[in-house]
């Protein structure tokens, strides 16, 4: 697969994945760009990839996890929910107050999870199998189910907790 084909096919799903993980537009733009630059460099210096999608998700995951660990994303929630940030990307759906509140609630619940658990949840949401998730995050395939269940439990608990407030 050429770089142009990969870009056409996977840009949107990588962008969605990174945005869901990070939650801010500027960081997402940078990380997605980094990911595709890495793909370009890889394709021009190495042999073609067997599974470009998995490779891209792996690079994007590593970039996001490193970023989240570095930045301590708790502070980023505040940035995401400032009126300025919301105003910048306003569209008719986001103007719905209930949906905004719900998004905020989920984001806050997600922030409480470790970066790797967050990545697993996102990859599961994007319909990856356990073996693909294991390959992307470089973990054992047998651990994926356990980590996923734990992450789901935590997230559901946090959402419920947040909903009760």
């Amino acid at each position, binding site marked *: 697969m050429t770089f142009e084909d990969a870009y056409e096919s996977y*840009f949107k799903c990588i962008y969605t994945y990174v*945005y869901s993980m990070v939650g801010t537009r500027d960081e997402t733009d940078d990380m997605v760009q980094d990911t595709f630059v890495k793909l370009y460099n890889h394709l021009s210096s190495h042999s073609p990839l067997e599974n470009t999608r998995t490779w891209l998700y792996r690079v994007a995951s590593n970039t996001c996890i490193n970023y989240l660990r570095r930045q301590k994303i708790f502070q980023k929630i505040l940035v995401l929910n400032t009126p300025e940030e919301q105003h910048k990307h306003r569209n008719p759906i986001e103007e719905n107050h209930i949906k905004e509140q719900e998004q905020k609630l989920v984001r806050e619940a997600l922030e409480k999870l470790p970066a790797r658990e967050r990545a697993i949840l996102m990859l599961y949401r994007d319909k990856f199998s356990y073996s693909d998730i294991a390959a992307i995050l470089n973990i054992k395939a047998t651990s994926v189910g356990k980590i996923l269940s734990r992450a789901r439990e935590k997230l559901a608990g946090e959402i419920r907790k947040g909903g009760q407030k």
Partner: protein
Amino acid sequence: MKCLGKEILTHYYDRELTQKDIDRVDAHLKKCPACSQMLQDIQKEITLTDTKLLLLKPHNIPDTPFTPIPARSAKAKTRPGKSWPELAKSAIRVPIPAFALLVLLVCLMAVGLFMQERKISRLQSPILAAKRQTTLYLISENRIQSLSLDAELEGFEPIKKPKIFVQKGGNK
């Protein structure tokens, strides 16, 4: 049959079991209301988290956030493929025989200097000087003895030792 754990049921829901295991779980679920209930709970939890996580998707994805990088030129593409002697050749830019001659000359000069240095140090060493003198002395002694024997055989008087050698021997 023992009740199924949450892990197996989650794997079952996620379709991560083999067909054989799926059949077993199906058979168990028909008989066990507790496991069926647990599966329903798992299903609810997964649906809840997945639906909530879908909310985090961006509403508008930019079409081209950055312009695609232009393709590399043919020259740039062939560059990493060069073998190291070719790269060395292009980097040096001096004819190879001239370069080899220069290296040889430098090596010879270095060896010459080293030998000269070694010679000087040998001459200056007091131990070596003493050794050399003793060797000369012993050679002279042998020479005198052989000459004396020749003289005796031919009927001449034996040669006397020169004073210098007598003195060198000590109190003789």
